[in-house]
Structures are given as C-alpha cells and as structure tokens.
C-alpha cells in the first residue's frame, strides 16, 4: 500500500511512464524518417501500425494510458510541490543552483501536452474517422501523401518545430533523471547521462527535420 501512496512511488511512476514514452519515441521517429528516405516503406509500416490488431487494440491503448498517467501524475506532483511551500520567498534565485529545464518541466510538459492535442487531431482523429466512421476500405498507399500534405501549411510546421524544441528540453532533464528516480546512480551514470542528452537533442531534431523537409518538398500533382 505504501508503494501506491508515498512520494517515492510517485517518482517511480513518473520515471517508468517517461521511460516507456521514450521507447515509443524511438519507434515513432524511426518510422517517420522512412517518410523522407523511403515513401514505400513508410506506407508499408504505417499500414501495418494502422491495421495490426495487436498494435491497434493492445499497444495503442497502453500508449494512451502511458501518456495520461505521465501527465496526470505530473500535475499531481506539481500541485503537491506548490503546497509544500505555502509562503513564497521574496527573493528566490533558482538559477544559482539548478538548470532552467529541470525547474520548468511542468511548462515544457504543458506545451508538449498542447502539441499532443493538435497531433491527435491531425492524425489520430483523422485515422479513426477514416477507418471506423467513414468505413473506408484499406488503402496501403495513402499514408505518405496524407503526411506530406499535413505539413503544407507554414503555421503547422512551425508549431511542430517549436513543440519539438520543448520536447528536447523536457527530455534533456527527464530522460537522465528517470534513472536517478529508479535508484540507478553508479559508475555508468556519467556515460548514460551523456547518452540521454544526445538522445534529447537528436530525436526531436529528427522529428523537426521531417516536418521541415515535407514542408519544403510538397508533392506536386
């Protein structure tokens, strides 16, 4: 019971759900990169992800639960942490002892959450409507065109790129921090932290590259 209610349990939940979402990012960026280098493979992979029952009815719900748990727990922690200092300092020099990203995870997280709403609207809602509301037949060739066309508007491309910058900041602190939360701090920590920081830059950069690439290279009919 104590594992559910304690402050340390909340750390474990944040860390494990965050790590799960990191593994999802690896899959997501890999498939998305195919849209730049191999439209055929991208169509094939997207079709598989869109119609495989294990992906659709097992992995997709787990992913959604992972996202919800991560941000709900993030809000719970933020509220509790604010309560823990009921009278604010007149002067508080947070920059003297902790990096900006680590002190503002709630704000980078909120931007990512807002982005997820747009992203869900852009792709997931469209996909659900296509498959289950309009009951269209399977078309394994549509994904590449749909994706590239999404990035035709300049505003959407900019919103995506800004969100990826915030994702990078969020991962910069969150990825390495998750291992500390799970109690892993040993001789490998320095190396792992470097890897986590590189990951925090490279993966969002790849996402941003994909969005910008499709914006600059529209499909000409």
């Amino acid at each position: 019971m104590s594992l559910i209610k304690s402050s340390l349990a909340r750390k474990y939940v944040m860390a494990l759900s965050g790590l799960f979402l990191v593994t999802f990012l690896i899959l997501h960026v890999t498939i998305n990169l195919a849209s730049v280098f191999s439209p055929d493979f991208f169509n094939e992979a997207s079709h598989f992800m869109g119609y495989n029952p294990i992906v659709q009815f097992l992995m997709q719900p787990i992913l959604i639960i992972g996202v919800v748990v991560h941000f709900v727990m993030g809000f719970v922690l933020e509220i509790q942490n604010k309560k823990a200092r009921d009278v604010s300092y007149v002067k508080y020099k947070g920059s003297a002892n902790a990096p900006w990203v680590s002190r503002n995870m709630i704000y980078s997280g909120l931007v990512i959450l807002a982005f997820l709403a747009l992203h869900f609207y852009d792709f997931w809602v469209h996909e659900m409507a296509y498959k289950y509301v309009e009951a269209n037949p399977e078309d394994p060739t549509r994904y590449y065109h749909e994706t590239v066309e999404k990035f035709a508007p300049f505003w959407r491309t900019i919103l995506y790129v800004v969100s990826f910058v915030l994702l990078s900041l969020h991962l910069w602190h969150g990825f390495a921090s998750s291992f500390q939360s799970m109690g892993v701090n040993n001789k490998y920590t320095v190396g792992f932290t470097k890897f986590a920081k590189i990951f925090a830059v490279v993966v969002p950069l790849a996402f941003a590259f994909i969005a910008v690439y499709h914006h600059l290279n529209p499909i000409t009919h």
Partner: protein
Amino acid sequence: MKLYLKIWRQKDASTPGKIVDYTLDGVEGDMSFLEMLDILNEELVSKGEEPVEFDHDCREGICGTCSLQINGEPHGPDRLVTTCQLHMRKFSDGDTIVIEPFRAKAFPVIKDLIVDRSAFDRIQQAGGYISVNTSGNTIDANTIPINKYDADEAMDAATCIGCGACVAACKNASAMLFTSAKVSQFALLPQGQVEATERVQNMVRQMDLEGFGNCTNTGACEVECPKGISLTNIARMNREYLSATLEG
C-alpha cells in the same frame, strides 16, 4: 562597507510578516554574516527597537543551527559553508541583501528568521537509529570489518548536519537529500542492516507526513548543501525503498 538590508520580520507564527529595510554601515569583510547581524542587533537594541531573531549556536559550521535564505540562496552565495562561516567579503559596498527564513510548509516560522525544523527530528526518530546492546557487554564497532569505500560513503552521508538548506533550496521544498543521507549512513554499514527494511519505509512515511514536497531531481539541494551531501544518496534511498516495499 555600507549595506542595505531587507530582512523578514515576523512577530510570531500566527502574525503575518513583512520585509523591513535597514541600512548598516561599518561592516568589515572579515566579519561573518552572523556577526554582521549581531552589529545590526546592537544598533537596534541601542535605539530601543526589538532585535532580529535568528538561529545560531556553534558558529563553527558544524552544528546545523544557523539557517537564513540570503539573496535567494540558503546560507548565501558561497558554496560548502553555513551562514556562520559566510564572510562579508563575499559582498560589496552598497549591496542590497535580502534575508529571509527558510521557507517550507514543514518549517513554520517561529519568529523573524527562526523556523521550526523539528520535522527533521521526527524523520530521524522514525528510523535513524540502530539496535545496539548497551547493557555492559557492548561489542566494539571495529570488530566488524567494513571495506574502506563503504565506510567513507557512510561517513560522507553522516556529515549531514540537518540544517535544512536542501529543503530551502528545493523548488518543491523536498526533504529527500536530508532523509536519504540519514538512510544511507546506516544502509551502507552492516550495523544498519537489522532495521534496514523498516527504516527506509518509516523515514519516508514520516517525511511525507510532515508535508515536504516531491523530489524532481533538479539537484539544487546538492549544490546548496553546506556539507556537500551527494544526490547518490537519494538514488540509494530510492533503491532501498523499492526493494524494502517489494519485500513487504
């Protein structure tokens, strides 16, 4: 040097406090921060005003009694020192210095700059002890061989003086650096193994009951700790707690 002080004045726990401005002249760089406050208090007393109340005891940086949030940092801008060991040479003529009590719901203000840190005592009482036979046939601790690395790590954790700077620095007012140091100093030694499972669970439970915030690994506590207590202690506590809870 001449300093402009902005000091939190609060009559008692139930009366709202406020920042009061003071100007203090003739401060020397060799004075400690607390000696500077002593001079201010002498001036206030000579004028018939009530002196500024602040915590202090050994003034040697080892007792953990002094506190103060100085210009937004616990124990001021210097590193690895307590307020009593902070020298005024760290400030310049004409500086404005904001002096406040450590802020946390679990550290209520008693008066002016003095806060009640007995929450730390209760965390310690919840599990920061070992069972040793003291009936006259006590076994010498050195009869149990302990490797140097573990002994050093345990000693490093045990240097925590419980001043509360970790809580004051943390944006979440979390007490995990303190609690983890107190868990670690026993967890690393064979003498601490008897109560290991209950210790970490009881201390964390008490820490939560006191109303401290959650750790978000910003590392502010480690930077501001006057004794350099490491974040590795928090990771150790997280490990100990996870295994203790899973063991039941």
